[in-house]
């Protein structure tokens, strides 16, 4: 039974959103980028043969959209920051994503992590993807995935502790 666009949209919208956040896209552009990803999905879904998992396929499209988005961001004037969330520790009632302190802390920590570690951390510890899937995505072996996850968890722990003690501190 082939997947319909509506199915993929309903079931994987949040996965795409989280993936784009894991790539470090700011909240201001992530919703727009999600729509870009699903435009590609809409066009390409008939070509999806199911040889990889749908999440692997969506991740690849997301990565492709992020690459273009970054190029566009680099060409923008300097007053438009690539990421407006970094370093913003003050409570903001209009922050769309951080609905409570825990989520705000999570976002602050993720934004301070190295992208490589953040992606592995989000995909494995939050999205619960399997190591072999992540290995396939990054074209690395499974041992390297586990090694990155270990380093990512260590960094996450350090940053979470520093966020809890002093929100203004950044990763040394």
């Amino acid at each position, binding site marked *: 039974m082939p997947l319909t666009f509506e199915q993929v949209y309903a079931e994987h919208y949040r996965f795409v959103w989280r993936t784009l956040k894991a790539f470090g896209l700011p909240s201001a552009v992530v919703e727009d980028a999600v729509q870009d990803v699903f435009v590609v999905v809409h066009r390409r879904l008939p070509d999806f043969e199911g040889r990889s998992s749908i999440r692997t396929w969506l991740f690849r499209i997301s990565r492709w959209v992020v690459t273009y988005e970054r190029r566009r961001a680099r060409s923008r004037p300097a007053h438009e920051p690539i990421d407006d969330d970094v370093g913003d520790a003050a409570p903001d009632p209009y922050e769309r994503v951080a609905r409570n302190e825990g989520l705000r802390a999570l976002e602050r920590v993720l934004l301070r992590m190295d992208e490589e570690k953040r992606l592995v951390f989000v995909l494995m510890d*939050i999205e619960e993807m399997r190591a072999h899937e992540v290995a396939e995505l990054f074209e690395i072996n499974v041992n390297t995935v586990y090694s990155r996850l270990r380093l990512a968890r*260590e960094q996450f722990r350090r940053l979470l502790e520093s966020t809890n003690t002093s929100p203004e501190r950044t990763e040394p």
Partner: protein
Amino acid sequence: MSDLSPEERAFIEAAREDWGPSDGAAPSPPSASAIEKRLADKPWLALPPGSLASEESRKGFGRLFGATASAIGICAIALVTVVTVQRSERAPAPAVESQLSLAAPPAAPVPEPPMPHVLPSVAVDALPDVPPTVRPADGPSRDGKKARDRRPVSDAPEIAPRDLLGEEIALIRAAQGELRAGTPDRALASLSVHASRFRDGVLRDERMTLQVLALCERGDVDAARAVKSELERSSPSSSHLQRLASSCAR
């Protein structure tokens, strides 16, 4: 493996439940018209995913190839200079003629067969849209932003896809014009060129739609139906299929 503490595990499990879009759930899927509009604003979304990677690798290969070619060229010039000097020292003789004789004579132009004149009967509204051409660099866009916001970081990386897209648009526009002018054979010829150059191009669906209409115009109903079936198979959700509902291939 650095195991998570129970507190960290609880923190992540809470995040797993709550972390997501601000409204907590996926909004309604975009309509076909919203998708078309976004594609018109961002035509690069219609490129096959992975084209960026292949473009990057092409650029890398291009740089490597360029450097290698330059090195070979310098060596060749040096070699030719040395050989020429040695020959001129021994017995100077003209070698230009023999080199010239290696060049093939220019091919004679092939006369184009005359096209049969067919009266147009396709409604203009039935023709598929062609994506807009690239806007002027500083002109205002549909959403009010300046077009320069859509410029690439540097001109070089975007030249290839933009040129290719431009070529595709030109071929499809030509076919559209020929179909409007009531010359479906010419339209099919343009579409055939597009098919050979851009088999799975960005405007593949547009090409197939025009092919159906041109074949209908020519009275070739079976071929039109075959192309429409292929379009239905390859792009079942294509909005162009609606446009073909009133064609001979319905």
